[in-house]
């Protein structure tokens, strides 16, 4: 899988967000080693689209989301949002840009200040940016709280720990909406919630997306959830992209062996299908020392010599369907690549 591949990017200027060659590395203490969390990925998101990024723990998907927000600044790469390059923005200009991109986090209760009243928490962004008079701010907050299904009166009197996990997540969502952003990055927003609450929040996100005209990046490890809410899905493994396709196409005809492994591992609530067994052995290697060549090769059932030495480039194998693999499940063997 190569991040240097950009075959899946759409023509310059069409997308609201365009990320190229994003690299994020963290030093490991003072050992001189570094964690290669994200190793050169590129992607774009059209206005109004929902891009899902899916992968297991350690693949770098959360880091990608945070890197877009510059929290922290990526090691290298370009992130262009609505025509502005984010990586070179000064502190103040970056803070301003952040009002247009908001983020929702995984742990609903930990993302809210436990000592403050909920309504205050949702009001905070407006207070920071001094948008409108007190009365106007109050009106916006009340409206947004109602949109997410939280009683504004109760919000004014209660603290986060008095609400359930699902309600806290709604409050988080409300907070991210008050500034009327263009794009929302959701980092595992439903992973910590019960199944029935998860459904409520997912439906809510869909409704709000339509209502507020949002673009979304949805990061999760649950492929079924990602498929449900996304238009397009990118599968990530150990800091690189494996496959990018529309969600229906990804499920119907997965091309990358890893995507196939993910799909086969998902337990299906149907006893006729039953348990299909473990699709792959072992666990992802450490991002400190990623394998050479294609990063999935040590565990890939189809791996061959070429995979151990040469990193595959992303290429198109069907309309809107891209894969980074030398021997994908369909689409033919990758041509011998010219020096990238």
């Amino acid at each position, binding site marked *: 899988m190569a991040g240097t591949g950009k075959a899946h990017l759409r023509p310059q200027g069409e997308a609201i967000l365009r990320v190229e060659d994003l690299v994020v590395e963290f030093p490991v203490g003072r050992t001189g080693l570094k964690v290669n969390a994200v190793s050169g990925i590129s992607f774009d998101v059209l206005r109004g689209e929902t891009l899902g990024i899916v992968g297991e723990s350690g693949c770098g998907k959360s880091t990608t989301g945070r890197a877009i927000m510059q929290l922290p600044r990526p090691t290298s790469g370009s992130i262009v949002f609505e025509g502005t390059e984010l990586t070179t923005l000064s502190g103040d200009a970056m803070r301003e840009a952040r009002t247009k991109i908001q983020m929702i986090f995984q742990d609903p209760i930990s993302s809210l200040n436990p000592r403050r009243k909920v309504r205050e928490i949702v009001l905070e962004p407006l207070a920071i940016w001094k948008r409108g008079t007190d009365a106007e701010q109050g009106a916006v907050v009340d409206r947004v709280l109602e949109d997410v299904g939280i009683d504004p009166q109760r919000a004014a009197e209660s603290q986060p720990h008095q609400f359930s996990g699902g309600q806290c997540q709604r409050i988080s969502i409300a907070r991210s909406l008050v500034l009327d952003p263009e794009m929302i990055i959701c980092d595992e927003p439903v992973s910590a919630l019960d199944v029935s609450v998860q459904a409520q929040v997912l439906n809510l996100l869909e409704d709000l997306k339509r209502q507020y005209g949002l673009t979304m990046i949805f990061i999760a490890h649950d492929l079924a959830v990602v498929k*449900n809410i996304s238009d397009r899905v990118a599968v990530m493994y150990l800091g690189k992209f494996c496959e990018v396709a529309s969600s229906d196409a990804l499920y119907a005809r997965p091309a990358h062996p890893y995507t196939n492994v993910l799909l086969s591992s998902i337990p299906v609530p149907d006893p006729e299908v039953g348990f299909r067994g*473990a699709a792959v052995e072992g666990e992802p290697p450490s991002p400190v020392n990623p394998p050479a060549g294609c990063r999935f090769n040590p565990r890939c059932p189809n791996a061959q010599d070429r995979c151990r030495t040469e990193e595959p480039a992303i290429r198109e194998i069907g309309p809107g369907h891209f894969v980074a693999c030398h021997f994908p499940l369909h689409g033919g063997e990758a041509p011998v690549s010219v020096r990238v």
Partner: protein
Amino acid sequence: MTTQAENRVETGTLIEVRALKTHFQTPRGVVRAVDGVDLTIERGKSLGIVGESGSGKTILSRSIMGLLPRYGTIREGSVSFQGQELIDRSPKEMRGIWGREMAMIFQDPMTSLNPLMKIGKQISEPLMAHLGMDRSSAWETAEKLLRDVRIPEAGRRLSQYPHEMSGGMRQRVMIAIALACGPTMLFADEPTTALDVTVQAQILQLINEQRRERNMSLILVTHDLGVVAGNTDEIAVMYGGKIVEKAPTRTLFAHMKMPYTEALLQSIPKMDQPSHSRLAVIPGRPPDLVNPPAGCRFAPRCAYARERCQVEEPQLVAAESPQHVYACFYPVGSPEYLERKVELSRRTDTNQGGR
């Protein structure tokens, strides 16, 4: 305790639970976490207990095993294991059974292993304590167990500490510890929830293999209907501290009776649905276990509830086959259910038309 091993049943009923209640004293009142549960587990069979948080499923498994703190806990009913009554045994008396006959695997492998003890020592301890092995044979057996749970380089791993291993591997170690003394009953409390989906499949496969090899019974507690669909013989669905439906796995999915079970199944996004499918939602929140609602505990959230459901609590009744029981006045497929369903679809049609 070799006499226990000699008395082991190879088939037939292993555990029988009757009217089990587990209540906790809290400043807010008495929390009725488990409020009258009946279960039977046969040797070599697996039972899945499915429910959301607050349903009481975790408390149930720990209560059966007797692992709850004594202070502030009220247990009533009967739990009999191989014919012996366990409910009023002290922890001291239970220690002969824990590890030896019954073992539990917990959800979070990071916190369930002692961070300061080598893996080998943690596996050897039950061997030495219960089976009276000496240190070297226990160590050897520990290595064999690590190989059984498919940990590569087993010998080297014995001297490692938990933090040197990944989540999936720690879970395998926990399984090894649980299996060490060859128990007949294994409790798995959300064993894969904290793991990645590919590792989850590996762990489930491992549990299945070991279970079949050792003819162990399994109680698998989870919120994931997908996990129980492929890994259990029977499923019990819990809500508000009670079992609301219980059936052999195939029967449950094919002929579910409780609207709750149906709603739960419908709220899961499935891979074969097209993207942007609207998920069926169960409105509201789990019931307050200190003051559970009168009547059916699911009624406040049930789309098919009627007046009777608010005042009278439904008891478990049998469906077509006696092994399938459910607690509902207007189950799936009943005339009242179908009537309401038509009403609801008419309503959503007008809603969507109006959008």
